């Protein structure tokens, strides 16, 4: 199986590549549209700030490349947020592939970023095959995707937000699968088995 990781300025590509290697896959890290399109699976990771990341993606025409993907794609953390329509982080227009808004945690009585291990519930869909409600996964984020019809995992931090969603061939998780211990590795394996 060919697995590609989108290479850009906000990707923690090495961490994701390491996690894939632990489950037995050697990924290709690339920003070449053709290579991305010819992969069986594509992972779109991310750590950083939305507007800077989007500017870079547009400049390299990676926005068009990602939009053209028809195979299963997994957005991780900032990658999930960038797949949405827009983000409150510096009022950024995002890729618009997931019909959701990205909002900031209000930070009233809660520490922001939401950092650490939290539980995911109301799990559905193939990414969570074999999981019971209440698994802990690792989050680091100040912005979140609102809950909607395509939410496949919920998390609560003050309010409920989408910890994961699936929309057509686009799947996304707000937590860091690559840092979520054995649970995260099983979610990656489930994605690779789609």
């Amino acid at each position, binding site marked *: 199986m060919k697995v590609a990781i989108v290479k850009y300025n906000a990707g923690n590509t*090495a961490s994701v590549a390491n996690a894939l290697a632990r489950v037995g896959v050697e990924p290709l890290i690339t920003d070449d549209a053709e290579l991305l399109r010819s992969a069986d699976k594509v992972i779109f990771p991310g*750590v950083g700030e939305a507007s800077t990341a989007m500017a870079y993606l547009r400049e390299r025409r990676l926005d068009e490349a990602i939009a053209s993907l028809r195979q299963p794609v997994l957005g991780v953390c900032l990658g999930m947020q960038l797949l949405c329509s827009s983000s409150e982080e510096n009022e950024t227009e995002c890729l618009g592939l997931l019909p959701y808004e990205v909002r900031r945690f209000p930070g009233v009585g809660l520490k922001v970023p939401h950092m650490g291990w939290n539980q995911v519930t109301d799990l559905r869909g193939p990414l969570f095959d074999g999981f019971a409600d209440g698994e802990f996964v690792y989050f680091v984020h100040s912005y979140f995707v609102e809950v909607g019809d395509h939410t496949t995992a919920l998390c609560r931090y003050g309010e409920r937000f989408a910890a994961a969603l699936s929309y057509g061939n686009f799947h996304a998780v707000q937590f860091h699968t690559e840092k*979520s211990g054995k649970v*995260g590795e099983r979610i990656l394996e489930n994605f690779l088995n789609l």
Partner: protein
Amino acid sequence: MLAKRIIPCLDVKDGRTVKGTNFIGLRDAGDPVELAEKYSAEGADELVFLDISATNEGRKTFTSLVSDIARRINVPFTVGGGISTPDDIGRLLGAGADKASINTAAVRDPSLIESAARNFGSQCIVLAVDAKLTDDGWRVFLNGGRMATDLDAIEWMRRGVELGAGEILLTSMNADGTKDGFEIELTRSISESVTVPVIASGGAGSRDDFAEVFVRGKADAALAASVFHYGEIQIPELKRFLQMRGIEVRL
């Protein structure tokens, strides 16, 4: 619920762990990667690696060690010790560390926090502060607690957060090494006055100490070294204990 985090800390010199030589079931107790794997398998929520090498050669070894850790460990880890420039941070994050902790260099030049947060994001910049109770209140100490400053610890941590630190690692020099419990009052003051997570460090001796620092000290995470290294507290048992006390942990 967001879980309280348990964080073992490993001191590394020239690529080998120091302290903690009586581990059971390890092929090589000095190998930081093997020890880290053991802790993460037992349920450590994060790990901290402090480089205490005194030489450039030791530092280089540490960077390649960080790559090995990143390949084999599936939970987040922070690195610290001797970080003095954004380049140092870039090198360690590039090698696969999730966060970098800065201490003395940030006091010498607070703009380091700002530039580090701007370049790498606040979420990966940990401000480590060694505080000691003096006649004038809690003061910041440098160089592993050997050098006094006249900086007020609480003010410094608040300022660090304003400059962009995404997390505070607070070590009480009074409590460190005593096994008499974490410094509760100071931890709570900080935790209530900053908007970022606080890791309490120094003084862990019993399971009760961890419960206290989470409940009364309002810490988001607790860090310890020797109680884990010498097997005095086992992480799975500690977490079950905390859960029985009504504290949210990842089991």
